């Protein structure tokens, strides 16, 4: 058991070291600040530890009335106290400056990493983004970077000052009394062991608690998120019962976890108190024998109390560091992920938009083929409809047209230019796209509409909105175009209308409509259809839709199934052919005769 564990640790350490190096590289131009911070840490720690020594000396200067003295306190004492005051002031200022530097270091690093991450997001291939949940990526960019800076940078400085504290303390203690120092040194590990013993026990409890809490949160999300459904099926009592089960389980684990983890402090404190008592005992004996002064004992007592603190700090910093390294590794995995293939500088020249697809093969999962031997031509200004059952590859087709994904083999040509040979931006500028899943950014209506044409005037925007029939509801909003909206504030139909308005405003030469009208009611659909008809005039358009009535006017119909084009032609020829399309089409008529 131990052998494998050690091995794992080694490889873990190696990758940790690599991550650490990367972090150091990231903080690059803050290197000076880091050095200054460490220097100040050294200074303040030494000063702060020296102060008790001076206090000890001061206490030794306190003389009782029976010793030959005067009414004045000794000038040595005053001198010492003035000295202390100076040091305290220097160290206060030093700590303050160090804190400021550490803040800057931590916050700037996070800022830099986040800025890099968001740039990375823009150039990562969609296969990466589709392969990771957005929640997970958000977590990396926001929470993990925080953890990284808190844990790694501040942890690092804490670790440093902790080590300095221990070393300097030992030095001062040795200067006071060797034997007591040795005794403290020998006893220190006891407190360490106690803390570790408790940490190990509570770690098990914490893992159980975390797992139970995770299950409970999932349950809460599921049930409360669908509370109406729970009520619609009268499942309230069952839901409560199920919740109670997991809630009780969590209570059990939580109680143990909270209890065990709260034992660390009292236990180590008890050990420290014992050490403290031993120092007092030994010190008192040594004073009687004349090997130590009362001031010296005071210093030793103060140190024996303080001495443990950096140890505790270090152990907590170490766990923090490990955690931070794990977070850092996640952040770097994102930042260093392979970006999209380098873009060509060439600009796509549009001569009407003739699209040719030659022998295209593509699949998401390279072990399973999805699209193979895809050949197709859309003449400039024609309308192509894509139909087929769910999962037939229609969305994939769009991913390829827009170069969200690159083909595995074969080429897509627009007006004779291979889309891989022109910049993605110029390709995408030529397309107007309305996706199945509407997306609005948090901002004003104007910002959302003018996304493709930021310099559009209000008249242009309103005209586009009127043409796509979104003006009717925008008009009724409190601040019209300046109304701030987000994904939740509009109905699905309204969102879709806004997405259509976006395209309406840019009037790109080619269109991609992905089931754009599926969630809008038919009356609105009529209006949109009309607007689209206008939009599609003279534009090469690709429409993915369930509604056969909307695609009958298409110049070409692609019938897709299992990633292949199984039929191709216009409505009439396909009906005559009597294949899959005819079946699909007839089902609409068969039902009206029911």
């Amino acid at each position, binding site marked *: 058991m131990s052998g494998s564990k050690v091995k794992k640790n080694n490889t873990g350490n190696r990758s940790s070291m690599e991550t650490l190096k990367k972090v150091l590289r990231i903080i690059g131009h803050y290197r000076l600040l880091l050095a200054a911070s460490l220097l100040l840490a050294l200074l303040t720690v030494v000063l702060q530890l020296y102060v008790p020594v001076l206090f000890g000396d001061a206490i030794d200067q306190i003389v009782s009335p029976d010793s030959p003295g005067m009414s004045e306190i000794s000038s040595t004492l005053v001198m010492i106290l003035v000295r202390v005051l100076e040091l305290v002031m220097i160290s206060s200022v030093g700590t303050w400056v160090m804190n400021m530097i550490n803040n800057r270091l931590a916050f700037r690093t996070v800022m830099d990493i986040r800025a890099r991450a968001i740039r990375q997001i823009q150039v990562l291939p969609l296969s990466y983004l589709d392969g990771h949940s957005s929640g997970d990526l958000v977590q990396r960019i926001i929470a993990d970077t925080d953890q990284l800076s808190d844990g790694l940078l501040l942890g690092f400085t804490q670790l440093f000052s902790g080590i300095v504290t221990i070393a300097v303390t030992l030095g001062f203690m040795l200067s006071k009394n060797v034997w007591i120092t040795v005794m403290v040194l020998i006893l220190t590990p006891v407190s360490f062991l106690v803390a570790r013993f408790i940490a190990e026990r509570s770690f098990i409890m914490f893992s159980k608690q975390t797992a139970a809490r995770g299950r409970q949160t999932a349950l809460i999300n599921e049930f409360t998120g669908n509370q109406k459904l729970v009520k619609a099926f009268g499942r309230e009592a069952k839901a409560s019962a199920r919740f109670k089960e997991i809630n009780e389980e969590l209570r059990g684990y939580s109680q143990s976890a909270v209890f065990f983890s709260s034992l660390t402090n009292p236990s180590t404190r008890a050990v420290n108190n014992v050490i403290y008592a031993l120092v007092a005992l030994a010190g*008192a004996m040594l004073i009687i024998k004349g090997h130590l002064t009362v001031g010296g004992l005071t210093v030793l007592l103060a140190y024996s109390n303080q001495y443990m603190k950096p140890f505790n700090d270090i152990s907590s910093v170490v766990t923090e560091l490990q955690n931070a390294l794990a977070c850092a590794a996640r952040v770097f995995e994102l930042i260093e992920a392979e970006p999209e293939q380098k873009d060509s500088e060439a600009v796509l020249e549009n001569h009407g938009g003739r699209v040719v697809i030659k022998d295209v093969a593509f699949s998401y999962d390279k072990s399973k083929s999805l699209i193979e031997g895809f050949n197709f031509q859309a003449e400039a200004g024609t309308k192509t409809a894509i139909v087929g059952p769910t999962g037939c590859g229609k969305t994939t087709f769009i991913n390829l047209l827009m170069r969200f994904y690159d083909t595995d083999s074969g080429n897509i040509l627009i007006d004779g230019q291979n889309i891989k040979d022109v910049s993605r931006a110029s390709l995408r500028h030529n397309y107007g796209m309305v996706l199945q899943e509407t997306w609005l950014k948090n901002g004003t209506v104007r910002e959302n509409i003018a996304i493709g044409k930021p310099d559009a005037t209000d008249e242009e925007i309103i005209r586009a909105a009127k043409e796509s029939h979104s003006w009717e509801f925008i008009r009724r909003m409190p601040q019209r175009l300046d109304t701030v909206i987000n994904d939740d504030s509009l109905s699905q139909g309204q969102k879709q209308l806004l997405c259509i308005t976006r395209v309406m405003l840019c009037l790109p030469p080619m269109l991609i409509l992905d089931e754009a009208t599926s969630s809008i009611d038919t009356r609105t659909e009529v209006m949109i259809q009309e607007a689209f008809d206008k939009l599609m005039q003279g534009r090469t358009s690709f429409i993915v839709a369930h509604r056969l009535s909307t695609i009958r006017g298409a110049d070409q119909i692609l019938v897709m199934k299992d990633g292949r084009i199984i039929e191709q032609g216009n409505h009439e020829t396909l009906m005559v052919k009597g294949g899959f399309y005819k079946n699909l089409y007839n089902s609409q008529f068969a039902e009206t005769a029911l």
Partner: protein
Amino acid sequence: MRKLLSYLYDYKIESVLAPLFKLLESLMDLLVPLVIAVIINKGIGGADNGIILSNFGLLICLAFLGMAFSFTAQWMAAKASVGFSAKLRQALFDHIQGLSFRELDTLGTDTLITRMTSDINQIQNGLNLSLRLLLRSPFIVFGAMIMAFTIDVRCALIFAVAIPLLSIVVIGIMLLSIPLFTKVQTAIDRLLGLTRENLTGVRVIRAFCKEQDEINSFDRLNDALTHMNERVGRLSALMNPATYLIINTATILLIRQGALRVQAGALQQGDVVALYNYMAQIVVELVKLASLIITINRSLACARRVSDMLDVKTSMEYPSYTQNTDNAALSGLAAPYGSMVLSPAAASSQLTAAAVATGLPYPGSVSGTSSSSETAVCFDHVGFSYASSSDAVLTDINFTAMKGQTIGIIGGTGSGKSTVVSLIPRFYDVTSGSVKVFGQDVRSYPEGSLIEMIGIVPQKAVLFEGSIRDNLLWGNEKASDTELWESLETAQAAEIVKGKEGRLDAHVEQGGRNLSGGQRQRLTIARALVKKPRILILDDSSSALDFATDLALRKSIAALPGDMTVFIISQRASSVRQADRILVLDDGCQAGFGTHEELLDGCAVYQEIYYSQFPDERPKNISGKNAGSANKRDSVHGDSAKQKKGAHANDRDAKTVDERGIRDAKDEIRKGVIK
């Protein structure tokens, strides 16, 4: 707020003992400097090993006693705080189960989830710390000062000045940073929102080539957050140096004063050491206290929010005489699972019993008139508005659905289709008029009894984590596998389940992620059918199905035995065309109610919808290009629905004859094709 304390009632002993033991522990800590003083003054001063040894023993005793007290306190605090939060969480969850749709709408899912998770965790944390430390820290601080006074009043005066000064600095910095922290949190939330937007909208951003814009706005927020963070940082960076300065200055004064007093013979050297030690204890505790205040402050805010939520009362009132029936029904549902498994015979008999029970009309309607026994659902001049907006969502809806009928509901986005059906199971109470189910006002049904008769397939197809069987059993806990398969067949979902490993036991991931939209939709239909409802509501539940499947689904539902009344909301005219009656809604008003033929004759809104989807059936005299222009004219001129209606009404008379002729001919052709 006070109500929350009642959840602590079970742990009242622990809640009192925890801080008490904590006090005992800190008392031990406070005694240490005194013992040290004795060692120095008497032991060392008198060179008495005995005194030194006995006091050393005392120190050891104090250490272990302190540990024992502390352990006890920690255990009590953990037990009380965790127990309290568990009870509170359960109470909150149960409370939410009792809320009606209206409250759920107002509160919002996110809020509910936050209250139950992070807010309650925060409260638990706050309570735990309060029980342990709230008394301890002030006790040590003031205890130290009092001890100082017992040693020497003049020296203790330094304490009396230093402690308030320290408190002001520590608590002041904390208080000043709290609002800044809130601002930081807001800034983080905004950055987080933008990041999420970038990820969910990546296709749109790339399609519009807005990558650089997004980077710019991210940088802006990122900068703002960093500046905010640095501002808070500057403030909290003061904490350590300031307290350090104060405490050490106080110590300097203390030693100077102590030296004077020793010289005056009023004090001994050991006493000065004791005073010095007390001073050291104070800082640590003050810092602890300050961070504790922040935690408690935060927990109190959370507690207030949770308490507010518990105060939300359901707006639904149920007839009081049904209270007993209600309880009986609930316990009847919940109790017999254990025995059920053992005897399938008992299960089925119980099932029929349950069916009979739910089938029975409720008090009063048993001897109802024959007409009410024929009607399933009746809307009587119904008006409705959601709580959040005062605008009427529905106005004067009037229709009757007979038993066994299929009612189609069609209309534009926001026309109120879903609202109409949500009134049938009384998810909301009408604002005016009444809704009757089986002749009985929905408001007179006891809680939970109405819902048992109604099967609902919501727009959003949601499944829960568990097996497919678990999900289907939502409809009816006691359904046999045979019944489940029957429902799956009807819902056209049997093939899906047969294709899964483990079939009914196949695992459904949270939210049904591992199923496609169409598959989920069919399974949710099956789930509603398992209930064997007397009224089935399909709220646009076939949107993700292709036409063939949609058709097969409606055929098999129509073929089900019994007189189930079915409501179908759809945006496809083809889906509601065969319904016995169709309710046409337009902006919350009833634009028509009747058969397909009747509506095609007399309802302009319906005509518009229908012909937009079946342009071939549009009467020939206005077909083709003319139809397009007619349509256009409508939408240009007709700003309000009424105008549109008017325009159509004028056209209608001219159309009617041709229209019918063409349709009849088409029907003939179609029948031919089918044969």
